[in-house]
């Protein structure tokens, strides 16, 4: 039995693993809320709508004290909010609000509002924290998680849409959310004049900093009614739905369109050889690194009979956004994620164990794909032997594209330091590869001098 360290702050219970199965132990302190969740019909209602993760009761017995042990449906991979694109983040926020609204109709409320309670399964958000629901007492609908919602969801989303599309990355350094005053510091004056932002961020921040309390009346007398609370949630839903990133754009978002026109034959050849390489492979998990908008990730999904889970990783938020939006229509087993190969998500939180680094969460791949990637990593002064070490994380195969220094894209990237850069020629590239891999196939991607390699990891 291995206890999940991410559960350490939850008094209602904890996740643990045994024999590859995920269990959740529910503490006696949470007994009445858990029973109410089931008996009120809220659990069934949310599961029927695919809002909440389903579970079954388990016969597992543990020496710890507990009320019940349940077995939640297993999820392949746990992603974190700083690995999501804007729309993923927005949909996670909307799902949380909708669940809160539905819950109040059943006499319950969410005791927390954190994006870590949401996961993406086949391009749809799913609420995974069954122990987040609390019974409402004395008809008091004031929502104790509203501040957390503002700092974990609303603030980052507003910043992503108005200031910096990468603002969700601030959650790596602010595990409990971005404080209201910091959100306001980053917003432009005209954004602060937005009535919703003024009343929901500016005013609460003013009250909090001035330490104004309802001193004259004992706080027990002040209550929020059900209608008042539902009005708040509905106005939040309307505002979050109105947020978009139309005014923001990035360098990479335009890249694929550009290359499609520029290198038609090259793209056709690359697709053809990629499909040919995939023929004999039966991976369960694939990492496509530098996936851009996921064009090749989708080819990989569609041309493998093993129906693998493909993780489509890219550093650019607009690419990941486009990838996610395309995949919402296609419904492939593909997960688009923000991923910086030179600075992957770290372990953070209590004892650095609360939120884990990405390599300990991503399932071990039987295939890693790196197309049109190595020149970008070399540009960061990372040497080819280090890059090959990354690809050696595969359990079996690698498909990698070699780009020679005289390639037009390399010339663009390295134009100011073409003589100084340590760029591997093809012999050096192959020599490094052969330290870990056997070369199974090589194909030239005409009309360019780029080459596509299929590699198999040496057995130790």
């Amino acid at each position, binding site marked *: 039995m291995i206890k999940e360290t991410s559960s350490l702050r939850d008094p209602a219970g904890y996740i643990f693993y045994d024999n590859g199965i995920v269990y959740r132990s529910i503490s006696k302190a949470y007994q009445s809320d858990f029973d109410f969740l089931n008996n009120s019909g809220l659990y069934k209602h949310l599961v029927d709508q695919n809002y909440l993760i389903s579970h079954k009761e388990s016969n597992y017995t543990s020496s710890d004290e507990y009320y019940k042990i349940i077995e939640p449906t297993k999820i392949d991979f746990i992603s974190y909010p700083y690995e999501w694109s804007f729309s993923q983040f927005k949909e996670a926020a909307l799902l949380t609000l909708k669940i809160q609204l539905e819950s109040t109709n059943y006499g319950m409320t969410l005791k927390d509002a954190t994006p870590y309670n949401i996961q993406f399964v086949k391009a749809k958000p799913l609420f995974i924290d069954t122990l987040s629901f609390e019974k409402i007492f004395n008809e008091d609908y004031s929502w104790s998680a509203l501040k957390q919602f503002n700092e974990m969801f609303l603030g980052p989303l507003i910043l992503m849409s108005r200031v910096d599309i990468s603002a969700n990355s601030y959650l790596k350094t602010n595990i409990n959310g971005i404080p209201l005053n910091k959100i306001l510091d980053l917003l432009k004056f005209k954004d602060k004049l937005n*009535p919703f932002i003024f*009343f929901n961020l500016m005013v609460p921040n003013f*009250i909090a900093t001035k330490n104004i*309390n*309802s001193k004259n009346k004992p706080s027990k007398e002040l209550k*929020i009614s059900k209608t*008042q609370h539902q*009005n*708040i949630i509905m106005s*939040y839903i309307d505002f979050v739905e109105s947020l978009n990133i139309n005014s923001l754009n990035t360098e990479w978002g335009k890249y694929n369109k550009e290359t499609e026109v520029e290198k038609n034959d090259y793209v056709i050849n690359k697709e053809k050889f990629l499909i040919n390489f995939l023929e004999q492979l039966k991976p369960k998990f694939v990492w496509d690194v530098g996936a851009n908008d996921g064009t090749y990730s989708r080819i990989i999904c569609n041309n493998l009979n093993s129906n693998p889970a493909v993780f489509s990783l890219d550093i650019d938020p607009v690419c990941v956004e486009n990838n996610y939006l395309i995949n919402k229509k296609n419904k492939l087993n593909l997960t688009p994620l923000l991923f910086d190969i030179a600075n992957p998500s770290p372990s953070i939180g209590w004892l650095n164990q609360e939120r884990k680094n990405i390599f300990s969460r991503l399932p071990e791949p039987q295939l890693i794909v790196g197309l049109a990637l190595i020149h970008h990593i070399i540009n960061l002064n990372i040497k080819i032997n280090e890059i090959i070490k990354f690809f050696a994380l595969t359990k079996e195969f690698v498909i990698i594209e070699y780009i020679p220094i005289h390639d037009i894209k390399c010339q663009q990237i390295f134009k100011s330091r073409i003589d100084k850069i340590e760029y591997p020629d093809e012999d050096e590239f192959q020599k490094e590869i052969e330290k870990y891999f056997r070369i199974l196939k090589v194909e030239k991607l005409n009309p360019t001098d780029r080459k596509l390699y299929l590699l198999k990891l040496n057995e130790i």
Partner: protein
Amino acid sequence: MLEMINLYIDPGTGMILIQLIVSAFAAVALFFKRIKTFIKSFFNKK
């Protein structure tokens, strides 16, 4: 120094007050939204 002082403030301070203000704003916003939807549907019918 300010950060230090903030550590000693109960995070629930002013919570009810804030939510009362916010709910008043929400009621007004939803009222206008309903008028907007009504006017839109009125013109759409024609």
